[in-house]
């Protein structure tokens, strides 16, 4: 493998948790629900995956548990924002506090414990030898899955009836309701799938990327995913570019360290990039007037 390919591979690896979480959030927001609890959901997933793997010795049970935990946890947000019609921003913030708090409460005794098994890498022969593009083919199954998933989720969102329903609910819920669609149910399902994927993204961190548990291990990835959602203009394919770009920034930090730039200043790179990415996403949104679902953040209640 050449240098370019291995840098790309590293960028993909560090971008994968972001990609998974962003994909989930895209569906969530397309249906009109803003989930600012993503950081908490990812943290819950990270811990659940780690603990389940420790307990069972199977990393796949860990992955599965993380998804379930993330999904169930995000249902709290679904209930307050969809059923109760509460302020989604505040509900999301509360979810993040709750998620990081509960995880550090439960996770205390798992700090420093080694993981019995890590996700296996499956290097694809021949393809992985291609210069640069070979970086796509030296990964664990979750990376491959996330790429396939992005394409599938793009297809469902833009080419199928289900996608039309989700987008309509995010744009004009009353129209979907009039057509006989259960708005609340679809929103619940979208938040739930966002939770599954957020949990999976979190587990990818503790089961592969940095295979241990400590408090604050998600380090703002949930928030970064939220800004990538806007940057990708709510398009699953766009999120691939955004997530790997971000992964690249994270990898860049390690390479820049050789030039004696203080490590602490380098660590600010992803955060500056987030602000930049969010800003360009917001400008694009204003210019094109497409993207942001019109009913994003607005609870739906049928007026009787």
């Amino acid at each position, binding site marked *: 493998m050449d240098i370019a390919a291995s840098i790309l591979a590293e960028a993909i690896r560090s971008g994968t948790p972001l990609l998974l979480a962003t994909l989930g959030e895209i569906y969530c927001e397309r249906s009109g629900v803003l989930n600012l609890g993503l950081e908490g959901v990812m943290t819950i997933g990270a811990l659940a995956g780690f603990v389940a793997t420790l307990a069972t010795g199977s990393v796949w049970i860990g992955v599965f548990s993380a998804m379930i935990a993330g999904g169930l946890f995000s249902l709290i947000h679904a209930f307050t924002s969809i059923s109760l019609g509460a302020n989604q921003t505040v509900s999301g*913030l509360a979810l993040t506090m709750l998620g990081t708090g509960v995880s550090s*409460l439960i996770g205390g005794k798992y700090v420093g414990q080694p993981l019995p098994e890590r996700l296996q890498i499956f290097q694809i022969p021949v393809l992985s030898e291609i210069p640069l593009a070979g970086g796509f083919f030296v990964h664990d199954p979750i990376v491959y899955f996330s790429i396939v998933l992005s394409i599938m989720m793009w297809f469902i969102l833009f080419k199928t009836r289900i996608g039309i329903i989700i987008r309509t609910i995010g744009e004009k819920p009353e129209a979907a309701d009039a057509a006989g669609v259960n708005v609340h149910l679809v929103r619940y399902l979208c938040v739930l799938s966002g939770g599954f994927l957020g949990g999976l993204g979190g587990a990818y961190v503790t089961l592969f990327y940095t295979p241990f548990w400590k408090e604050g291990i998600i380090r703002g990835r949930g928030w970064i995913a939220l800004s990538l959602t806007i940057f990708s203009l709510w398009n699953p394919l766009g999120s691939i570019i955004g997530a790997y770009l971000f992964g690249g920034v994270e990898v860049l930090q390690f390479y820049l360290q050789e030039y004696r730039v203080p490590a602490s200043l380098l660590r600010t790179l992803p955060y500056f990039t987030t*602000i930049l990415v969010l800003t360009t996403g917001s400008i694009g949104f204003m210019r094109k007037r497409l993207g942001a679902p019109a009913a994003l953040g607005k609870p739906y209640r049928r007026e009787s």
Partner: protein
Amino acid sequence: MMQIRVEKRIVVSKGFNASIRIFTLLLSLVLVGILFAIYGINPLEAYARIFMNAFGSEFGLSETIVKMLPIGLCATGLAIAYKARVLNIGAEGQLILGAMAATWIALYSNIPSSLVGAVMLLAGFAAGALWAAIPAVLKIKLNVNEVITTLMMNYISLELLDYVLTGPWKGPSQRGFPLTDPFPSYARFPLIGGTRIHYYTLILLLVLAIILYVFMSRTRIGYEIKIVGSNPEAARYAGINVSKNILTVMLISGGLAGIAGVGEVAGVQGRLIENISPGYGYTAIIPAWLGGLNPLAALLASFFISGLMVGSDSVQVSLRLRASFVDVFNGMILLFFIGSEILTRYRILIEARGRKIWI
């Protein structure tokens, strides 16, 4: 058959609003109590100890006030920002910038010693406000979501703090530890005898909370801020400069958080250290909402939350409780609080066997 109907509530009494807040508080206490029980801790004993440690002794009470200073300063500012629906989550970073500004004044400037205290406070306010101005301008000019930008600014400020403490500001006499040298005595805020309460900050907090209360309820700008928050469309229609109001609340909330940072370095630590704030800026979000976004009520709620923190710090060792249960508690309060807000907007009618029950 039982029937449940939901109707819009037309009149909401203040008493009803307050009782909902107290109810959510109690509900959170009960649920966290269940959590205690799961961990094999008697919840009643835990709460009794937390309460006694926080409010029951002179020492506990003074420590509660020490924590209330930064939390209260952040919370009163945030209350105003949230009133305008500007969701500044960046008080933590704004606090750190304030602390850094004060440190620079105390250690590296040539300001006459008699003026240092006042200049530190001004510089802290300015630094916090400037740090908040960046997300504010992005929001005003480019419609960038302030929740995410203010949060990113928090992460950046933490790294900046790490940078100055491991690099340029590392105290030569600190044997490699990430600390600055101690402030000279003229740059330290005086304490109330026998306590750690730095009363400059306490007086400032009380005065500022009252000023903000009057500002919100009696002035034109305060009135505009409320309209911007409740109905931005109407505000624009009425000729209110929405951008100006957004900037105002961001500068005020950022500045107050900056002052909180000054208090921590000049009043409590006497130097700049890595964990100058154990998340005060985040914690302050809770009392801001709990106080119904009213500066004075937010101050009262800050006192309560600070007590909870002091009390839980002290039972951490004796009951082997992790401090993070406070985060869980805070998350729950916030969740229940906004969840129950529905009760202030709608009323629920339960009809069963010809009887009607209103909630």
